[in-house]
């Protein structure tokens, strides 16, 4: 197993335990031989031993074990904490520090551990009445200790910083980016070369800070998924089903806040898969399926986003039942009739709507998928559900890699401005009003459906224009003339391309339709980021 990625964490935690040991030994030497002091010391050694064993640092493990053994005897009152023992333990502690420093420097672990172990063995085996052992002058000195004999005060290369600090740093850089956008706009029309150069340099430095902060915030998806095998094991034991969990792509990294927000949804989806997706063994065998059901979590990059797919090979979702339950919960029949099966599947995200008849202690009450969808969308992502009867369900969560600063195009509609993420735009074209007929725009040999932004967002009619800008996007569920998924969003005009710091939507606007975030511009104006996926769902109906 490659443990190198855990080295920073190991060093950070070990340095905390070493500091704890030093304090404990000092207390012990001052006469604090109470159970709590000895117990704490024992735990510090024990933790270092365990972590070092996991990382494969055998000399550290052995040395920590020898000291832990000595402390255990004192803890269990099998030997008294005689004066002089602490002096030996201090020497051994220096040995531990030396080894840990070698780990930090990437040097071979070559300190003489056998010598320290022998010193401890001598103490353990010495008769209780024997004279206290003198500190061993021949014990190997820490190689990096200064020759003057004054111990070196050295801080760890690894710092423990609260996540909140990075949140605040990112927010501050976000505000800087928005202020920079104003400078950039002014610099376009400025004749001052100094001002243009200054703006360019400022942008370069802000970008550098932004990337540093982002990289510090990125965590691998496996940090989120590492607890899932145990969850699946426990659930399958409880349900009597056989379930295998396969995870791929978990080395992809996402922003910490996004990963944190996906924890609850992921657990909920997995519970649904085990409880309601995967069939009992006898049913699977009867249907010609392998006894063990498979849940697959697959993460992969899609442009500037990461898709996390959770799929099972279970029974799938009964769409007819979903329609019935949605009708019973108050969704109008005409609305249900207008939905195709793909749209109807999303009704499981309505509160209280579930396809299952069985309620388990963890799922089946129709509570949860609404929360999953809200959580995913609240993080700037989108949720798509696909189901094949008898073959299983696939839930795709398409998430932004970072939730903060994106490249966006400003578009104008009436007196308002909106942002569209550049990553979602295929191209932009200027068109005459006559080129859009009955909601379709002819482009070369094909036609694509067109959606006017203003009416879609419920804006007051601003009157017809001679020319419009068409923002060509790819939308789920849309089919253009050539079978592709291109669609156009019609806006009055487009203007600058900017780096925009996107904030999440907070109540009371957290459930606004058609937008997924907001930017506060350098001059204080607020501009919404359009939710292209959500708007895309309207294209079909409009055209």
């Amino acid at each position: 197993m490659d443990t190198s990625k855990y080295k920073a964490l190991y060093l950070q935690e070990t340095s905390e335990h070493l500091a704890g040991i030093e304090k404990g030994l000092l207390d012990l030497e001052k006469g604090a031989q109470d159970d709590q002091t000895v117990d704490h010391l024992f735990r510090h050694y024990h933790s270092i031993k365990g972590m070092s064993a996991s990382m494969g640092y055998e000399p550290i493990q052995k040395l920590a074990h020898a000291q832990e053994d000595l402390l255990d005897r004192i803890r269990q009152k099998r030997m008294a904490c005689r004066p002089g023992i602490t002096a030996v333990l201090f020497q051994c502690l220096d040995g531990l520090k030396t080894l840990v420093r070698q780990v930090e420097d990437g040097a071979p672990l070559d300190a003489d551990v056998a010598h320290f172990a022998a010193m401890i063995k001598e103490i353990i085996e010495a008769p209780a009445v024997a004279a206290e052992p003198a500190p061993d002058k021949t014990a190997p000195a820490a190689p990096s200790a200064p020759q003057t004999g004054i111990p070196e005060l050295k801080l760890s290369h690894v710092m423990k910083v609260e996540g909140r600090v990075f949140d605040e740093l990112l927010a501050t850089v976000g505000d800087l980016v928005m202020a920079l956008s104003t400078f950039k706009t002014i610099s376009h029309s400025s004749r001052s070369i100094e001002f243009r150069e200054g703006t360019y340099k400022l942008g370069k430095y802000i970008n550098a800070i932004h990337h540093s902060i982002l990289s510090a915030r990125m965590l691998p998806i496996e940090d989120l998924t590492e607890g899932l095998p145990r969850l699946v094991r426990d659930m399958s034991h409880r349900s009597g089903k056989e379930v295998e969990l396969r995870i791929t792509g978990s080395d992809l990294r996402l922003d910490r806040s996004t990963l944190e927000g996906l924890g609850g949804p992921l657990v909920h989806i997995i519970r649904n898969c085990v409880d309601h997706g995967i069939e009992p063994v006898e049913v699977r065998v009867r249907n010609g399926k392998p006894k063990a059901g498979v849940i697959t979590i697959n993460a992969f990059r899609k442009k500037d986003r990461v898709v996390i797919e959770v799929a099972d090979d279970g029974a799938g979702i009964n769409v007819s039942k979903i329609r019935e339950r949605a009708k019973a919960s108050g969704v109008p029949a005409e609305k249900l009739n207008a939905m195709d099966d793909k749209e109807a599947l999303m009704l499981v995200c309505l509160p209280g709507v579930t396809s299952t008849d069985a309620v388990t202690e963890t799922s089946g009450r129709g509570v949860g998928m609404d929360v999953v969808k809200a959580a995913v969308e609240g993080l700037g992502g989108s949720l798509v559900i696909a189901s094949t009867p008898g073959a299983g369900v696939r839930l795709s969560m398409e998430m932004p890699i970072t939730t903060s600063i994106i490249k966006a195009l400003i578009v104008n509609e009436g007196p308002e401005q909106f942002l569209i993420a550049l990553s979602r735009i295929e191209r932009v074209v200027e068109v005459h009003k006559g080129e859009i007929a009955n909601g379709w725009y002819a482009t070369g040999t094909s036609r694509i459906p067109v959606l006017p932004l203003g009416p879609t967002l419920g804006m007051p009619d601003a009157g017809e224009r001679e020319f419009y800008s068409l923002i060509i996007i790819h939308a789920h569920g849309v089919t253009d003339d050539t079978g592709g998924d291109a669609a156009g969003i019609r806006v009055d005009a487009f203007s600058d391309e900017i780096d925009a710091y996107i904030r999440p939507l907070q109540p009371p606007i957290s459930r606004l339709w058609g937008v997924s975030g907001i930017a506060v511009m350098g001059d204080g104006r607020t501009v919404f980021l359009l939710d292209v996926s959500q708007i895309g769902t309207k294209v079909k109906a409009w055209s």
Partner: protein
Amino acid sequence: MNADKLVLGLAGLKLAIETTEVAGIVSVQHPTYLPHQSGFVSGLISLRGEPVTVVDVRKAFKLQDAGSGHMIVVVRDSKRTLGLDAGGAETSFLWAEELKKCIIGGDGGAFTKGTLTLDHDSYVLIDWRALFDEAARLLTTDETRV
């Protein structure tokens, strides 16, 4: 009830808000449009870099238009922030000393916490949290639920 109040004079009605809940007062040309905004929700502004949803007090209390412009009083507690668009309202204060002489009344109508009477003048205490909750309801469409 006895804490200092900011008073907004609008079309003959005097609306009072706790001054401790006022985070700032800003004037804007027009708040940013909110998709599918309806009822008394009038848009979005920013205060010190933070987005703030704005409700039109004149519409919420069914008052005749009180002048042009958008003077927005931003109120805040630990969980919520809301902008109260008071148009061209006149502002004054009711100080704690004066409030001791006030007669406290009960129901002041929707989105109110009660009334105060001082020297024959009546003041309605705004329940801005109720306005906030109603704004959240107005801004949630069927489609964002599904």
